[in-house]
């Protein structure tokens, strides 16, 4: 049995269907990326999972118990970090965490020890006596994450935690999340920075206009997004003067389109994107991409196209997202 099971979840606000028939599950020790554009229904779903809203229909089970019917039993198991992580500006980091530890019912030395261990884990110990108003955004976000960990929840729900953070703070957050997953916590994280999610998520759920379009391991969704036929993308750059660039690019485009396996060629400023695709159902060898690329490069060189850069690009979560969401929900 999964730690979290979401079954046919719907939330309507009058005529607006914010979430419709969403189902997915999440196991202990895994990170699920919840992906979708703004207004897709991510935050609404997360608020329902965090017991802050009730669904119009459907069920959410945490350790087999209904989150909707018994929020009091579920709250101790959930750590929720909303997209605006509010802090009390006139409290120090220690006072802030200590207050929430008290609110979670922790007492005496056990409470102090827990606050210390959370500050240690999130790297906040050197800042314990600093007012939260004096912290950087990245540090405030750590304080917020620390707050969600105080009661040692099994499920972490993080709504856009990386939003507005600098690259270094993002990398640090990623490491913290990996460490939490390694401890056996299930993490549901939403973001619209897809490259970031693809690096840390074991699986993802893609949602648009309230409907779940795809769910499963990232590799599986990537594979599915490639379609039935194996494909890859090649990016190449030309080295020439500005005056002759367009002419060279046109020549290259014509030449490329005449080659076998080339399905499309897109000219984008000084880059040419070439999509190579085997026929559906054909028996692809393990090195078909390498073979096709070698042949393509040879043709370009033979025809004196001034290629200065030639590289294949692996499909990522962004491609999968674009592929899955494109025109599916009108």
């Amino acid at each position, binding site marked *: 049995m999964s730690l979290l099971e979401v079954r046919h979840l719907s939330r309507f606000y009058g005529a607006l269907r914010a979430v419709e028939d969403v189902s997915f599950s999440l196991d202990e020790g895994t990170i699920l990326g919840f992906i979708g554009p703004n207004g897709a229904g991510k935050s609404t779903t997360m608020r329902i999972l965090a017991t802050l809203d009730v669904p119009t229909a459907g069920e959410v089970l945490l350790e087999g118990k209904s989150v909707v*019917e*018994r929020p009091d039993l579920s709250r101790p198991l959930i750590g929720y970090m909303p997209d605006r992580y509010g802090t009390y500006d*006139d409290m120090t980091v220690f006072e802030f965490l200590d207050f929430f530890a008290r609110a979670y019912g922790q007492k005496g030395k056990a409470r102090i020890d827990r606050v210390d261990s959370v500050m240690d884990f999130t790297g906040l110990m050197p800042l314990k006596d600093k007012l939260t108003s004096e912290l950087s955004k990245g540090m405030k976000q750590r304080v917020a994450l620390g707050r969600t960990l105080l009661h040692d929840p099994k499920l972490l729900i993080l709504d856009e935690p990386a939003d507005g953070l600098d690259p270094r703070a993002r990398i640090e957050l990623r490491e913290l999340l990996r460490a939490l997953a390694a401890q056996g916590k299930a993490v549901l994280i939403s973001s619209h920075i897809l490259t970031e999610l693809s690096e840390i998520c074991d699986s993802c759920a893609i949602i648009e206009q309230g409907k779940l379009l795809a769910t499963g391991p990232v590799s599986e969704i990537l594979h599915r997004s490639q379609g039935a036929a194996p494909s890859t993308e090649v990016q190449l750059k030309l080295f020439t003067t500005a005056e002759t660039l367009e002419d060279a690019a046109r020549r290259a485009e014509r030449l490329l389109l005449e080659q076998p396996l080339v399905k499309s060629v897109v000219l984008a400023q000084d880059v040419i994107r070439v999509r190579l695709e085997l026929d559906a159902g054909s028996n692809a060898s393990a090195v078909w991409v390498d073979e096709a690329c070698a042949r393509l490069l040879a043709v370009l060189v033979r025809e004196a196209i001034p290629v200065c850069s030639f590289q294949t690009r692996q499909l990522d979560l962004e491609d999968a997202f674009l592929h899955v969401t494109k025109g599916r929900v009108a």
Partner: protein
Amino acid sequence: MTTEAIPAPAAPLRQPDALDVFGEKLADRINPIVVKELRQHLRTRTFWVFFSLMLLACLGISLVAFVTAEESEKVGLVTFFAFYVALSGVEHFVIPYTAYRSMAREQEDETWVLLSLTGLGPRRILAGKLSSFILQGALYASAAAPFLLFSYYLNGIDLPTIAIAIALGAAFQVFLVSVSVSLATLAESKLVRSLLHFVVLGSLGIGAITGTSITIGLSEELRKSSIGPEFWVGSGSAFFAMVSTALLLFESAASRLSMPTEPYARGPRALFVVQALGGLVAFVIAWVVDGDDDILAGAAVSLAAYLAFVGLFIASDRDSMAKNHWAANGRFSLLAPGGLRGFVLVMLVMLIGTSVLVGCYGQETNTDAGVLNLIVGAPAYVTLYLSAAIVIARWIPHPPWQTPAMVRLVGLGLFTVGSGVPPLVGAVVSEGDDRSLNILNPVVGLVNLARDGSGAMVQVVVVWAVAAIVALGAFLVLLKKDVRWT
């Protein structure tokens, strides 16, 4: 992991003494919100500025009293009330306003969500807020206490007067803090927050001045030797009204902040019953003491006004209840959520109240038919307007019309139209208080009932007939909307 420099090592920590240990144990036992609020507010500039200002004012008053002590016999009384005014400025304005800001900031900064997730629950969070500001009031009062006692030694005031004035002031402070914290829970949007800010400032300003004047007046009254039972009944009723209204507002705020799966309706409904029936008891006691049947008429009209206003909030609850409430309470527990049960509860309280008043009226020897008309007629208007609001709001299929807020708006609109339009039409075609035109008018209709005595029985029957039909409609509509869990 950290990106900021590690500060220099701190000085060695002092070993906690017995007082520290006791303080820590106490802090573990009390509501964590109290600890948080006290921590926050004791370091604010507002607290220390007003604390110093109050002490300075008291010091100034003491000096003036000391200089003029020989000149008047009443110097103790005047000095006491001067201290009282200085203290009341903080207790009845600054602290309630700070309480409002504190609660509103929880919503503005979205820390409210974090508090709800801790499992404290809205009631404990609000109680924590309330307690912490009452404690702050006690801190101010303890600083002013030596000055208040000083006034006793100046002669002209006795200890009971001091004690009663302080007790009334404390009760009024609790009331104002409760109102402020409850109002702050309404501040969900920026627009409402801006409007509320001015409403709270204005209300607290007026409330502080009125409350202080009433307290001083009552304390003065108490000094007179001949105080009748009417005074005690009046004071007791006012005290009950203040405390129960504060509690009702508190429970309503807690209810507003609760999830549909939490037992949000129980508190406000229980308080509604207590306040309605408690008020009725106060009227009955006043009637027993005074013997005037006008008190019964006043009771009927007051109960009707209360049921129409507060009842509108109770009966306009969202439809149905969550499955867990159904499982725990069954469908017809009147304290469980749902418009259907709210409506039935209001009708039941109205029936009990009317029966009590009719019973009292039956004990009268010199009966006035106008009073009976009011006792029997006023509930009919309540039933009519409450039911009509529900029927109309539910009848319009567009979703926003089904919301509690819309039912309340329709109710207020109906009351405005029902009481304002018939007299206007009457002024054009016959007279403003025309009997036929105003038969369903909740204001002029009631005045006509009181005025016409035994000749108004037909009006009572007609109003009750219309009210009963509309009430049946409202009941059926609510019953249809009430989801039956299997």
